[in-house]
């Protein structure tokens, strides 16, 4: 009898610049005795050392949706592959999508919000980026793809830490933090990490957005301010007016969505007992009432944007204007 699966199948997106250790991580996930089975979507066949009949080759075919959203690109191949894998649901516990080293994670992530079937049957768990501790600094200078992958990540494996000194490691971590102060960073060697720190992260799960606490390492964002890609965050202890906030955020992502890679917020609206949480990928926003604010919980609204050429002053002004 087939399993009647009611829960959505989690999907982990694995990115990382060439040679960072992505395939090593993938092989670890597939070979460790955790009792779970994964379907894997890869770009280069033959690199996976594990015998798995659920390994699928993909062509990274990105196309634009005709939905008026100019940056709404999705991975058409992924939609078809997931449709195909779903015919065998019950045979695996999760899906791992490995992208090429030069891939932009956005079309992959957007696929999970744009296609109805994919969105109904699967859930994007997290974007995991493997970064080379020795070479990341250089790649952030010369490879926009590497910067995208760091900016987009929910989890970052700062790998090959044995090849750098402690101060070099600190330095590269500060550079990551200047771009993305929210991702969970793990130091690894040979991509060695417990898989529960990579899978089952629920990073796109509105229910699991508990707090937005940017990890601004001591002065790090000042020392290594990345002019092009950065994150900005604002908060207010005064309630917001939903009739001002929603038009503002929708207009903002329509206009600036190309530059905004990720956005996230926990909001307190006036006369509303519930926390409102939202997240976005470029122009696509997903939000909902989450749970009531606790009696002793500070009703702090906080919003964060990670992107390119963000106009901090204008964003802050827009956010402040939403205060009721």
């Amino acid at each position, binding site marked *: *009898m*087939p399993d*009647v699966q009611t829960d959505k199948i989690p999907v982990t997106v694995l990115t990382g610049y060439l040679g960072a250790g992505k395939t090593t991580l993938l092989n670890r996930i597939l070979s460790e005795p955790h009792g779970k089975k994964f379907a894997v979507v890869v770009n280069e*066949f033959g690199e996976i050392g594990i015998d798995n*009949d659920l390994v*699928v*080759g993909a*062509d990274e*075919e990105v*196309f*634009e*949706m*005709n*939905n008026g959203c100019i940056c709404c690109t*999705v991975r*058409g*191949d992924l*939609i*078809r*592959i997931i449709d*195909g*894998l*779903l*015919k*065998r*649901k019950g045979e695996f516990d999760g899906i791992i999508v490995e992208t090429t080293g030069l891939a932009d994670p956005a079309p992959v992530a957007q696929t999970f919000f744009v*296609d*109805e*079937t994919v969105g109904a049957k699967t859930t994007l768990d997290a974007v995991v980026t493997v970064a080379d501790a020795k070479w990341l600094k250089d790649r952030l200078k010369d490879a926009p793809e590497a910067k995208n992958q760091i900016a987009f990540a929910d989890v970052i494996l700062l790998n090959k830490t044995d090849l750098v000194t402690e101060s070099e490691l600190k330095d590269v971590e500060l550079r990551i933090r200047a771009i993305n102060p929210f991702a969970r960073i793990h130091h690894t060697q040979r991509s060695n990490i417990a898989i529960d720190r990579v899978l089952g992260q629920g990073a796109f799960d509105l229910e699991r957005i508990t707090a937005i606490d940017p990890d601004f390492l001591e002065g790090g964002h000042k020392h290594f301010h990345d002019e092009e890609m950065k994150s900005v965050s604002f908060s207010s202890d005064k309630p917001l007016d939903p009739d001002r906030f929603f038009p503002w955020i929708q207009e903002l992502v329509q206009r600036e969505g190309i530059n905004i890679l990720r956005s996230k917020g926990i909001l307190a609206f006036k006369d509303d007992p519930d926390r409102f949480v939202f997240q976005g990928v470029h122009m696509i926003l997903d939000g909902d009432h989450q749970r009531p604010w606790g009696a002793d919980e500070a009703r702090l609204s906080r919003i964060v944007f990670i992107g390119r050429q963000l106009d901090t002053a204008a964003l802050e002004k827009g956010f402040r204007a939403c205060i009721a």
Partner: protein
Amino acid sequence: MPPLPPTPPAAPSSLTSKLRPLDLGGEAVGVRFLGQVALFATGNGALVLAEAGEPRRIAAHRGAILSVAGDARRVLTGGDDGRVVATLGDGSSTTLAEQKGRWIDAVASGPDGAFAWSAGKTAHFHPVKGEPKTLDLPSTVAGLAFAPKGTRLAIAHYNGVTLWFPNAVATPEFLEWKGSHRGVLWHPEGKFLVTTMQEPALHGWRLPEGAHMRMSGYPSRVRSMQFTAGGRYLATSGSTEVILWPFMSREGPMGKQPTMVGQRDMRVSAVACHPKEEIVACGYEDGMVLLIRINDGAEILLRAPAASPITALAWRGDGGAVAMGTEDGKAGLVIL
């Protein structure tokens, strides 16, 4: 063949007592009849053959069946095991083609036993006699369909459809329309070509001039479409009723309103048209199946709502039976 009631009854008639339930053991990917036998293709690679008596199960593929086509003689299936398999009504099956390590995304059955299949960006044509031919496309092939006359293959991919004449030296013709085209279907007289798109819309071309036809307004992606016998209507899924686009004039549906039947508060997930009359079998996302006569909307219930969407639906060639299958591996056969 049983006639439908001459006038619509006050209460919807029901033939649910004639439904013979079957267990497929995997998602119903497609179903076709060969003579009296219904062949269900499933997500676990098996073909389940049902007629009278116990259903027979054939392990046709080692993984999931991804695509199903066929003619009056055989059913063609393409699998994620890289094989194209032909199965006859007696349950015997043969591997027609194989490409190890690839998924067979689409199969199509052509005139006189020719067939086509695709893996990735390459379409393959196998004539009855002679060497197979291939055509490389700019992006992955999502759908294949042979024209009703002559040897012409429509290949759906990104940004349009390529018309390939594998037996001629002519360069393939490209019908362009931006977006991801998935399913592709010819009008029975070859005058129109229609694709289902990633967006909730259909696109069509009037042939041979290639005039565009855009059919939109669906709340969800169209997965199932079929022309009625004679080609006067194109029946489609994707909405909370069967949307029937009129194709009786040379212009096709442009500037005309579609006919709508079978409205419910549930989306239509599969349609299948009666082989001779203007009657459509309609499967919904809750597993219900209705027979609906197009001219007056009269309905007969074949399968009561259950849990899982109808994903496969077909009429027997003589119109005397309907087979249906669901996403959760249930199926049914109704001899009318």
